[in-house]
């Protein structure tokens, strides 16, 4: 009896092993197209960073360009510009993150109070829209509004104040960048917070109301604590992009007059590296940016795991 069972089991398991091998082959096939593009467009450029340690000349390629060690990195840190550019990047990215989150959270709390369904839907439809539009398009919108003769300045002039050159004054330019980005994204980023609010147990609100808590008190003591895990998660996720202040937006709005406060890492790499054809130097700056970005992402992931039991990836 035992033996027969074993025998049967043997042939069946052999069959199963064959099927398993065949399905494993299929999985390799399924991965293959993706793997091809992954290697071609993600991993080969990673090896391409070798050019940051060379005086790369496209005609000579990677193999015959001269190696110069850390020359470009040393040059980078000696540049007076680099401190300014890093500061601009961090200021703009942090500003976008802080104001963006505060407004989105506040908006989601307010929107949750709207009981007229039709109105809630309409407002949502409108405020999500800018997220789906390209900065190329929105840059024109912004220029039309904030240009020297735009509607905003006409209003400012009408109430008797001096016109402000939003796009050409390096003092106000970062504010314009942060403000317009918050305007574009607050609606769409409120989606996550709205989802978090609706998942809070309504019993908590009822209990708080029974105890005589005012609306403000309930927001502070029930709604916000209930949203805390999501807020922490989003903070960690946003912190990882602290070195990308938004190329598309800044590229479409800035000009040499506002480089002082508006030039960020990505725009700098593009201008110097690609337009100026200093490929090696551009790649060196890009490499530093990627490395810091990776460290930030890893620490953010570790932090969220610890704080909220969730993880980014």
């Amino acid at each position, binding site marked *: 009896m035992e033996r027969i069972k074993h025998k049967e089991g043997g042939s069946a398991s052999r069959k199963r092993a064959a099927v*398993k091998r065949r399905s*494993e082959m*299929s*999985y390799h*096939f*399924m*991965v293959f*197209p*993706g*793997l091809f*593009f*992954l290697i071609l*467009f*993600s991993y*080969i*450029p*990673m*090896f*391409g960073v070798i050019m940051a340690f060379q005086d*790369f000349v496209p005609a000579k*390629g990677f193999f015959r360009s001269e190696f110069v060690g850390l020359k470009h990195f040393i040059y980078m840190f000696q540049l007076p510009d680099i401190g300014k550019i890093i500061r601009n990047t961090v200021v703009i990215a942090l500003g976008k993150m802080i104001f963006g989150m505060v407004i989105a959270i506040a908006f989601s709390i307010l929107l949750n109070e*709207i009981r007229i369904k039709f109105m809630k839907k309409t*407002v949502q439809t*409108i*405020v*999500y829209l800018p997220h*789906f*539009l*390209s900065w*190329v*398009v929105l*840059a*024109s*919108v*912004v220029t*039309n509004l904030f240009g020297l003769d*735009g*509607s905003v300045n006409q209003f400012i002039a009408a109430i008797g104040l001096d016109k402000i050159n939003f796009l050409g004054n390096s003092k106000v330019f970062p504010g314009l960048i942060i403000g317009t980005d918050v*305007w574009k994204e607050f*609606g*769409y980023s409120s*989606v*996550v917070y709205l989802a978090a609010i609706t998942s809070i147990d309504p019993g908590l609100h009822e209990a708080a109301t029974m105890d005589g808590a005012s*609306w403000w008190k309930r927001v502070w003591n029930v709604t916000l604590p209930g949203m805390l895990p*999501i807020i922490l*998660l*989003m903070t960690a*996720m946003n912190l990882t992009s602290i070195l990308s202040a938004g190329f598309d937006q800044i590229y*479409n709005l800035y000009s040499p007059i506002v480089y002082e406060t508006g030039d960020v890492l*990505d725009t700098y*790499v593009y201008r110097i590296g*690609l337009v100026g054809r200093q*490929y090696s130097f*551009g*790649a060196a700056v*890009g490499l530093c940016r990627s490395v810091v970005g*990776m460290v930030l992402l*890893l620490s953010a992931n570790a932090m969220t795991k610890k704080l909220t039991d*969730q993880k980014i*990836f």
Partner: protein
Amino acid sequence: MIDNKSFHSRVRITIIYIIVILLGLGCLFPLLNIVAISLSGSAAVSANKVGILPVDFTLIAYDKIVSDGQFWRSFMISVIRVFLALLLNLAVTVPMAYAMTKSKKEFRARNIYMNLLIFAMLFNGGMIPTYILVRNLGMLNSIWALVLPGALPIFNVILLMNFFLGIPKSLEEAALIDGASPFQVLLKIMIPCAKPCLATVSLFSIVGSWNDFFSGLIYMQKLEDYPIMTYIQSLNVDIQQLLKSGASSSTLENVTELSNRNLNAAKIVVAVIPLLMIYPILQKYLITGMVMGSVKE
């Protein structure tokens, strides 16, 4: 006491409604402004008299666009590019995401592939090595430069993988016992079950390709090859700079065209119409996508 309380809450609700309405209008007005500019007479536009309603209503700008060869060329390049990218994205990400749902037991190399994907999300070579690669591959000025570098959106692979993992295992096992191959399982079971998620990643792909201007900017050297957003972006070039750099008569002609703000506004409006057309679907699926992507358990 109670009256006082309900009075307070009524005031509060009113204030909340007012704030929310103002925020909504704040999002809508800047967009209406550009539509109004596109429909206004150029004199009114130059004098900055246009608010959210057209002044001296005219369709001249749209009439000009109809016969603008370059605009439609760029428009079509973008349409073709969106389709190519969508097909390629789905063909590449869906099978990969499915293979990634297998356990290490079923697919021994799974973790190696997964780590390769995750590392590529963490670290990238940057703008310049990618540019040099595309150049060395001889893809400059070809539509493939707009499509191939973005063929594998890793975030979408992870999104799909998570969705596939949520499909009851029993469905798949039943099919496997009936002798279905992994490809059949993917085609007949996983893909039909994952329709909402497929819609989400498709829309990510469509919006991303349509809105992208940067690859056109760096990989295309001639205006004729620009996709629509790069073309629109090129309209914003500083006219003064063009004039100073000793512009030829043909560029000067361009300059007079560039200074035509209502024509540019009309081009922008037309370039956004395809997105507005799919916006109702977008709203439905991208929001599920956003919630799926960020609230992972």
